[in-house]
């Protein structure tokens, strides 16, 4: 055990006492949170250039209403209420008489104006937009080169539909008040559950939740586990290959057993992961507390997170060390990196369905398959849904058994492969190393 600790200390110091570690510590969350950051930056730096668009109104019902709606929007919605800064583009609407004889020519002419950036888009309103029939269909067609997430498109949809509702209400001779009442929209208010305070025994009102919270917490947990595994377990693949090629392995194997060698390296990885996790989590708790978002901190999940993290790194780390021992060069390492990372990558693709239904069959079954349990179970536990307690416990037992199996197989592969040069790491050779007597 002393030898494993000596090797662990070396591995830990070698990883932590480098500029690379500090840079990675800072850069990784920035890179992985880059999407959120970009969204925040984009929100602040929205395009405020005025947008001109043309409308071909086959119904003849919309001109007056839309011109008024555009004017109101340009007056009320495009400037910041406090600073007065322009925060959104003004719209300029141009109505074009429909050319029923040559509709395609008209559309082409307008398309060319969009291409030359004279127009942002043009829109066609169907003749039967108010009361569609077979001969007179209802449609709203938005022609543009920027169809994805185009604010004008959604503003136009809402404006036309508002007018249609009003026109229909007018036909029923409803008053403005009746119309407003009829069209009133109530949103759903997300709430947690009512609970009993364990100390005082008092009932506690449910707290408000929001969609961001229910997504953000499990997402951050998954990303954290992904980053920590990437920093601590994945590098073992190339590190062991290098130590084998540079003959460091043989020097050490004169003193320590292959198992001690492998476990010393894996423990080093755990040390790096726990250090990094502690830094990130303490920094996160401090920041959220300072900003008044204490409710976002999932304290009850943290013990599970650390237990699963340690087992996950042992599981992945032994696999990586064993595979690294079979590699002869960087080419071998590259060919093995992707398949070896699948237990980490697959949960990334499943985060959306698992968060949307954490107790559904997909989430439950995936979280009980040992290679995926650490990540999937932590995601589920981090959601606001109550997971039956037997599931994280069963998952933990499964992971412990699978980790023991990984260590056993990994050690057998490692001890044989670490001294063999020139043999390609194929499934057949791995199987031979693992199970041949």
């Amino acid at each position: 055990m002393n030898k494993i600790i000596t090797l662990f200390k070396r591995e830990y110091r070698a990883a932590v006492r480098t500029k690379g570690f500090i840079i990675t510590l800072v850069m990784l969350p920035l890179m992985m949170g880059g999407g959120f950051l970009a969204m925040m930056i984009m929100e602040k730096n929205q395009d405020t250039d005025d947008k001109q668009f043309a409308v071909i109104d086959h119904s003849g019902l919309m001109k007056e209403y839309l011109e008024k709606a555009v004017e109101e929007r340009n007056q009320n919605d495009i400037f910041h209420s406090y600073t007065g800064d322009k925060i959104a583009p003004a719209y300029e609407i141009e109505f074009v008489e429909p050319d029923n004889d040559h509709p395609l020519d008209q559309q082409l002419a307008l398309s060319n104006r969009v291409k030359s950036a004279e127009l942002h888009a043009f829109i066609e309103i169907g003749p039967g937009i108010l009361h569609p029939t077979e001969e007179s269909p209802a449609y709203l067609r938005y022609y543009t080169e920027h169809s994805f997430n185009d604010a004008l498109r959604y503003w136009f949809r809402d404006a036309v539909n508002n007018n249609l509702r009003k026109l229909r209400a007018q036909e029923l001779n409803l008053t403005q008040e009746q119309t407003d009442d009829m069209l009133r929209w109530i949103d759903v208010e997300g709430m947690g559950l009512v609970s009993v305070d364990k100390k005082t025994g008092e009932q506690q009102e449910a707290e408000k939740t929001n969609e961001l919270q229910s997504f953000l917490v499990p997402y951050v947990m998954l990303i954290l586990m992904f980053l920590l595994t990437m920093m601590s377990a994945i590098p073992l693949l190339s590190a062991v290959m290098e130590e084998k090629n540079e003959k460091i392995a043989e020097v050490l194997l004169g003193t320590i057993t292959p198992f001690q060698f492998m476990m010393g390296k894996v423990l080093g990885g755990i040390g790096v992961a726990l250090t990094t996790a502690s830094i990130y989590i303490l920094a996160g708790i401090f920041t959220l507390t300072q900003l008044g978002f204490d409710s976002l901190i999932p304290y009850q999940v943290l013990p599970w997170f650390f237990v699963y993290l340690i087992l996950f790194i042992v599981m992945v780390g032994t696999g990586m060390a064993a595979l690294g021992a079979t590699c002869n060069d960087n080419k071998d390492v590259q060919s093995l990196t992707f398949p070896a990372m699948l237990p980490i990558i697959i949960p990334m693709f499943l985060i959306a369905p698992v968060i949307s239904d954490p107790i559904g069959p997909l989430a439950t079954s995936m979280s009980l398959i040992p290679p995926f349990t650490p990540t999937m179970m932590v995601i589920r536990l981090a959601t606001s849904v109550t997971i039956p307690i037997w599931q994280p416990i069963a998952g933990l037992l499964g992971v412990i058994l699978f980790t023991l199996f990984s260590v056993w197989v990994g050690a057998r592969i490692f001890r044989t492969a670490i001294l063999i040069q020139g043999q390609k790491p194929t499934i057949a050779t791995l199987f031979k190393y693992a199970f041949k007597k």
Partner: protein
Amino acid sequence: MNIIELSGVTKTFGSVKAVDDLSLSVPKGSIYGFIGPNGSGKTTTIRMIMKITYPDAGTLRVNGQENQDQRLRNVGYLPEDRGLYKKMKLGDLLLFHGELNQGTDLKKRISYWLDRLDLADYREKKVETLSKGMRQKLQFIATILHQPELVILDEPFSGLDPVNAEIMKDVILDLQKKGATIIFSTHDMAMAEMMCDYIFMIYKGKKVLDGTLLEIQDQYGNDTLRIQSEMGAAALEGIAGIEHVNNFGKLQEVRLAPGTDPQKVLTELLPKTRISKFEITKPSLNDIFIRIASPERKEANNE
């Protein structure tokens, strides 16, 4: 008392028998030289002694221990291929190896050895800044830092300049004086002749020589002449009974065919040239090595 005992040890890699039915006893406190051509099985034998690889058959005891799963205590091992963590500082690296080998009083010992092997100025430098020879000395220190009872050195002199080879030789002899047993493999026959109490030669996985230098030489008798003459090697042409001439330029080492009388050779030489040296001797280790492993021998054995 023997510190190492091998009995009928065999190791096969695929279809190749790297070591074939090898038996060997290494007495405690001796210097034992392992010689043999490249790929003959020296390193495999050493790796088995170190329990890095395991024999397929036979028994192998080190200090009486046969347990395969435990690493040897009090052993220092310098493998043929040197491997050091390049990014570590010398002092840290030696401390790491010393701790792994469960050495005591390490900081003091590190200072002593760095000083003795002329590396003290590099203590705070990283390994990657050292030359090849310096790295070899560093690895040697890492091997002996914990004062092992058994020191196994695979090619300790390769790549060293004469000054450093001399320093290394002195250290090895010192270790022996302090009671350590030394095994080293080498291609430097002169060094093996001068340093080793016992010499073991392995060829194609089989033991072909084992004993003291004198015992080995006695197997070949006084069939060697060392001759210095004005004509050099040309004077030896056409003389009957000469089996092989190893020409060193100024000196020729002549191997006589069995039953050849050295006096007859001298008689034939005298009319041809002026002779300054004519020595009847036993064959050198180098010559014995060549006799066993030379291409002529392989052809003669249809190998």
